[in-house]
C-alpha cells in the first residue's frame, strides 16, 4: 500500500529544507532518543539547521485515567509515569493526596520513603549516565552502570516486591517494612558503590574524548534554564542552586545533611552537557550519604497512618512536590468530594527539558544533538505521560 504521503507532507511543513538540505527523522524508533520520541531534523550535511521535537508516541492518557480510578487504586499508575524513577512518582502522588486529606505520614514511613527514594535515584542516575556514555560511543560504561543498577534493583525488589514498578507507597505511609537483614545488605552495597564511583570517573568521566565531546556543547545559561522552567540536574547543571529536598523540605529530608551538587563549568563552560552529566554522578554519591544517615537514624513506630478504606476527601485542591531524579515532579490534585480525583495533573522534568531542545539544536552537529538529548536525560514516558 502506498506510504501515506499526506502525513509525511504535513511533517515536512514544519521544516522548510532549501536545495542542499535534507529532512531526517531522528526517531521515533532511534537508538539514542531514549524512548519513542521523534526529532524532525533539517540538516545541511552534518550541521543541523533546525530540529523540531515531535512527541506523543507514548501518550497513555495517565491524567485521564486519574479521573476514572479511585485514589488508592491510582498508585500503580504513578509507577508508569516514570518507570526509571518510579519511587518518586509514588511519593509525589501520596504527598499530594495526604495534603488534600490534611494527614501526615508517621516518621518511620517518612524515613522509609527517603531510603527507597534515594536508592531509586541512584538506580536512575546509573541508567542516565550509562546511556549517555553509550550515546557518545563507549559501550563498556553502560554495562557497568547496568550492573550497579541491578544490585540496587535487587535491594528494592527485596523491599517492595518489584524491580521497576514498585507501588511501594500508600496514601498515609508505605506498604511494607524493612525485611530483616536488608539494612546491612544496603550498607554493604553502599561501601562497594562509593569505591566504584572513583573507578567510574577514571574510566569515562575525565576521558579526553568524552570531555571534548561534551565540554562546551549544548550550553544552557542560568537565565535560559530558569526561563524554560528546567528542573533537577538540568537546572543545577546551569549553576542554579535549587533543590526541592532542601529548599521546600518535605518528608524526612530536614533531618539529613547533604550538599546539593551544582554545575561549575569545570572542564568547559558553565551549563554545558558535561556539567549536567557530572551533577548526576555527584548526586549518586550524595544519595548514598543520605541512605546511610537514614538507615542509622531509622525511628521505629508504625509505617502507615490511619486512613479510611473508601477515601473521600472534601472538595479542594492540593499540590504535591517531590525532587524526582529528573527534577521536580509536581502533582496537582483537584477533588470534588467523590471517591475519584476530579482532576489530576502531573508536571514532569522531562517535559520541560524537551521544550529547550529546539532552540539548542540550531547550528550544532548531528553528534551534538545526540549528546544534548542524552545530557538532558529526557525519557519518553515522562514526556508524554
Amino acid at each position, binding site marked *: 500500500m502506498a506510504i501515506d504521503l499526506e502525513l509525511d507532507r504535513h511533517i515536512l511543513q514544519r521544516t522548510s529544507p532549501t536545495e542542499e538540505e535534507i529532512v531526517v527523522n531522528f526517531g521515533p524508533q532511534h537508538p539514542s532518543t531514549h524512548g519513542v520520541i521523534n526529532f524532525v531534523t533539517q540538516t545541511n550535511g552534518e550541521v543541523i539547521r533546525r530540529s523540531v521535537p515531535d512527541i506523543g508516541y507514548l501518550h497513555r492518557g495517565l491524567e485521564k485515567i486519574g479521573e476514572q*480510578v*479511585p485514589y*488508592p*487504586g*491510582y*498508585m*500503580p*499508575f504513578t*509507577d508508569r509515569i516514570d518507570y526509571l524513577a518510579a519511587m518518586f512518582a509514588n511519593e509525589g502522588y501520596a504527598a499530594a493526596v495526604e495534603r488534600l486529606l490534611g494527614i501526615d505520614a508517621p516518621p518511620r514511613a517518612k524515613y522509609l520513603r527517603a531510603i527507597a527514594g534515594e536508592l531509586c535515584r541512584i538506580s536512575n542516575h546509573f541508567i542516565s549516565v550509562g546511556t549517555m556514555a553509550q550515546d557518545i560511543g563507549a559501550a*563498556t560504561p553502560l554495562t557497568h552502570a547496568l*550492573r550497579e543498577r*541491578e544490585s540496587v534493583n535487587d535491594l528494592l*525488589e*527485596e*523491599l*517492595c*516486591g*518489584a524491580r521497576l*514498578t514498585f*507501588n511501594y507507597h500508600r496514601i498515609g505511609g508505605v*506498604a*511494607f517494612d524493612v*525485611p530483616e537483614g536488608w539494612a546491612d545488605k544496603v550498607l554493604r552495597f553502599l561501601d562497594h558503590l562509593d569505591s566504584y564511583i572513583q*573507578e567510574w570517573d*577514571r*574510566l*569515562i568521566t*575525565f*576521558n*579526553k574524548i568524552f*570531555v571534548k565531546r561534551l565540554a562546551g556543547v549544548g550550553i544552557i545559561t542560568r537565565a535560559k534554564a530558569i526561563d524554560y522552567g528546567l528542573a533537577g540536574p538540568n537546572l543545577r547543571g546551569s549553576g542554579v542552586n535549587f533543590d526541592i529536598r532542601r529548599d521546600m523540605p518535605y518528608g524526612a529530608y530536614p533531618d539529613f545533611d547533604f550538599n546539593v551538587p551544582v554545575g561549575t563549568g569545570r572542564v568547559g563552560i558553565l551549563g554545558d552537557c558535561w556539567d549536567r552529566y557530572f551533577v548526576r554522578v555527584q548526586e549518586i554519591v550524595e544519595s548514598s550519604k543520605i541512605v546511610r544517615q537514614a538507615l542509622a537514624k531509622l525511628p521505629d513506630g508504625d509505617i502507615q497512618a490511619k486512613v479510611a*478504606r473508601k477515601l473521600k476527601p472534601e472538595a479542594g485542591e492540593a499540590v504535591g512536590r517531590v525532587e524526582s531524579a529528573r527534577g521536580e515532579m509536581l502533582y496537582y490534585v483537584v477533588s470534588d468530594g467523590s471517591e475519584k480525583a476530579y482532576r489530576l495533573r502531573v508536571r514532569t522534568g522531562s517535559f520541560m527539558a524537551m521544550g529547550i531542545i529546539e532552540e539548542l539544536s540550531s547550528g550544532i552537529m548531528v553528534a551534538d544533538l545526540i549528546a544534548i538529548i542524552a545530557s538532558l536525560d529526557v525519557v519518553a514516558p515522562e514526556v508524554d505521560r
Partner: protein
Amino acid sequence: MAESVRAYFGHITEVVKTFWEGLTVTLSYMARRPITVQYPDRTEKRVADTLPSRYRGLLEVDMAVCTGCLACERACPISVIKITTDKDPTNPKQRVIAQFDVDESKCMFCGLCVEPCPTGAIQHTREFESTMKSIDSLVFRWVPDPEKPVPVYRPVKGQDAPRAPVGELLRKRMAQTSWISPPSILVPEGPKKE
C-alpha cells in the same frame, strides 16, 4: 583561536593520561568475575526460588480459605478479578463461589488485591514464567468446574486460615498445562476477524 604550544602538548599529555587510566580499568575487568546469571538452564537453583519472598509474580488463590468477600475484586484498579458467588441450591444458608477468574494477561502485579484479603487466600507467588500460546489461556480459573462451586470458608476467631504454602498450587497448575495447551473451557473465541 590560536592554541598556544603549551595547550597543544597539554592535550596530548591529557590524552595519554586519561587513556592510560581507562585502559587499565578495562584490562582489570578481564580478571574479574562477570555477573551474568546464565538463565534458564545453567543456574544452580530455579530462578523463581532465588527471588525475594515479597516478589509479586503470578497471582494464586487458595479456594479453601476464600471467604467470598469480594474485597480483592473491588481493590483491583483494572478489574482483573471476576468472582460470582451464589446460594447453594441444596441448603440456602451456605454461600458458594461459582466463578473465581483472574485474567493474568491484564494483571499489572501491583499487589493491591492481596492487602485487603482477610484470610490471605489471594497471594503473589514467585512464579513469572507464564508464556502461553494464546492470550486467553492466561485467564486462570480457580474454580475449575462451574458445576461444582466451592463452599465459602467461614473464618474461625483467633485461629488464622489454614492456607496452602504460597506458590504450590500455582506450580502444580502450571506443571499440568504445557504452553501450547488450548485455553481452558468456557473461554469465548476472540473478536471476529472481518
